């Protein structure tokens, strides 16, 4: 394991939602970290808590109903959960940028692209507030040029409706990078686009992240995209992190039964039929199973699985390739105690 200080470090984070009729225990003691310059994928199906995790990092979850009973989130070694409003504004302005799934909803329809871009640049940091109109415009043009949009001058005066879906997403990417963020989060950046356009946008994003050496979190349910764009992958199921591994390794040797089922379920271009998928459905967050949340759907479930929550096991491998899985099937492997604690010098 590397001794580098993570840029983002989530430890034992739980998030609950208090709703009419009970408490939804959505995130269940998750651990997650991103090293500087690392490209991390977060994979899981609808409702597994991917977006909740990211919203918690940005502190944009409405509270109530959201409630964080335990856990810590360190961004640049400061605890996000203890930040003042002022520090939060600073973090959202310069620290972390996010690209959303639906560019149409992310852009305001009644302001021109130029107005929205300059506003983002202007409020990103206190020194930018002193920029004059021309400097702001120049920065906005720069942002549009780097996302390979033709004729950026005209675009500044256009409105989102005048652009195609692919162009809108490029504008969003330009906007997210205009503030020079330390960490870029992309939440399903290509899902709302057509396949050929998605390919263009993702390649652009990949090139920009590589050029700038940005830390990058990619949230998606499409395994193929994660394989193409990340160094390390977290697999999430029903509010639990079930497996973490370097991308290459995860795709050649998935260990958790859920990851295996998920990979099996993806139809292949090479043919050979489609597997039945994973039986059953995601558990009710109001009353999740007491043991492993996947146990009711798991083909390898053992008695212990429904009693105890599986700890994280480190699979014995070359030391630089840390492959961790939360499943009792790997009980004989070395148990990781105090998960990640040594990685952060406090």
């Amino acid at each position: 394991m590397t001794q580098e200080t993570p840029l983002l470090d989530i430890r034992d984070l739980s998030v609950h939602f208090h709703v009419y009729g009970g408490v939804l225990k959505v995130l269940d003691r998750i651990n997650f970290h991103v090293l500087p310059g690392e490209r991390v994928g977060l994979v899981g199906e609808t409702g597994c808590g991917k977006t909740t995790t990211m919203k918690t990092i940005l502190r944009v979850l409405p509270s109530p109903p959201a409630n964080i009973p335990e856990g810590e989130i360190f961004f640049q070694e400061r605890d996000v959960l203890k930040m003042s409003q002022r520090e939060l504004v600073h973090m959202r302005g310069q620290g972390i940028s996010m690209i959303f799934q639906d560019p149409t909803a992310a852009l305001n329809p009644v302001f021109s692209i130029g107005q929205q871009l300059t506003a983002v640049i202007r409020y990103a940091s206190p020194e930018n507030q002193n920029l004059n109109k021309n400097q702001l415009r120049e920065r906005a043009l720069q942002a549009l040029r780097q996302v390979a949009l033709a004729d950026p001058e005209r675009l500044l005066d256009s409105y989102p409706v005048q652009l195609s879906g692919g162009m809108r997403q490029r504008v969003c990417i330009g906007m997210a990078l205009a503030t020079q963020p330390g960490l870029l989060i992309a939440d399903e950046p290509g899902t709302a686009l057509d396949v050929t356009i998605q390919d263009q946008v993702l390649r652009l994003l990949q090139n920009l992240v590589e050029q700038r050496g940005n830390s990058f979190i990619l949230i998606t349910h499409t395994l193929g995209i994660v394989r193409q764009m990340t160094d390390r992958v977290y697999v999430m199921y029903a509010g639990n992190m079930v497996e973490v591994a370097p991308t290459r390794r995860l795709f050649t040797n998935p260990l958790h039964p859920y990851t295996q089922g998920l990979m099996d379920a993806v139809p292949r271009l090479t043919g050979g039929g489609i597997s039945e998928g994973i039986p059953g459905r995601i558990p009710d967050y109001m009353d999740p199973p007491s043991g492993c949340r996947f146990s009711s759907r798991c083909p390898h479930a053992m008695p212990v699985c429904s009693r105890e929550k599986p700890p994280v096991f480190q699979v014995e491998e070359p030391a630089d390739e840390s492959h961790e899985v939360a499943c009792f099937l790997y009980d004989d492997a070395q148990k990781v105690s105090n998960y990640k604690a040594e990685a952060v010098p406090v």
Partner: protein
Amino acid sequence: MSDDVILRIDNLRKHFIVGRKGIIKREPITVKAVDGVSFDLQRGETFGIVGESGSGKSTIAYITMGMYLPTSGTITFNGRDLFERGDRRPLDLRKEIQIVFQDPGSSLNPRRTIRQILDLPLSIHQPEKDRLTEIIRLLEMVDLPPEFMHKYPRQLSGGERQIVAIARALATNPSLMILDEPTSALDVSVQGKVINLLIRLQRELNLTYLFITHDLSVMRNLATRVAIMYLGRVAEVAEAEHFFESPQHPYTQMLLSSIPVLTEAEEALRPAQIRSTGEIPSPVDLPSGCSFHTRCPQVMDHCRHVDPLMVPIDVTDSDHIVRCHLFEQANGQVQS
């Protein structure tokens, strides 16, 4: 061979008028959603239509269902013209063609129980039968427990709802099912179950599927023949196996190379040299000549002015046809 044709679509066009232009607003602005599409469906096959948004694939489905009248062209079903009486399609013809929509959340009435949902098509098409036994039989056929008939759609998961939608389509005992992106709203882990159910039902009931999707990987595992559509026209038609082994049309190659894949073996199937470029043109203002010429890596001067014809890729293989100038020349055919 021609006896086996269940559905024949011949030179189908559907133009929507979306506005007016000109000084006195007389000149219509039209979207050519479907512009001269022809193909046959053999009985018992799964014919896949793949295309991006705006390619006209759903419009074809809706016309076949009778939701729109075609602007021109004909559709014949078992030899009968589907539009012989305009939009007033006889009941016995309606029951033969059924559709499953993309989003079961909005295609099932949230205020009806599953029993009521399944009862409606039965009451119209088979009023003489014992409908309760029939509902139980339908649920059994799709592997759902009979208790489900007392539930409401919101009590079911996405996959189960789509299975109910399939059962509803089966209620009239159709011979042709139109599947309009039946799994795109579902998670991968449940997608397989729905697709395998469809495959089993097809085998048991000798159904013909018109399967519409934008997911080529799903298509690979399900379709017997595939048509690729681009801006209201068919770009390429081929047997599925052949199609994935040797895609010919530059657009097809671009589409295949854009798919994110999981394994090395799949990567080898993708034509790597074709990178996706350019924007999909607006359907209101289609480019002249071949509509793909603005994005085509192999564009020739010819393509900008002359619309290509559908031609077989070689003389020996008449099942694999492509709309591209590259192959007209290879065939030695003279362009009119």
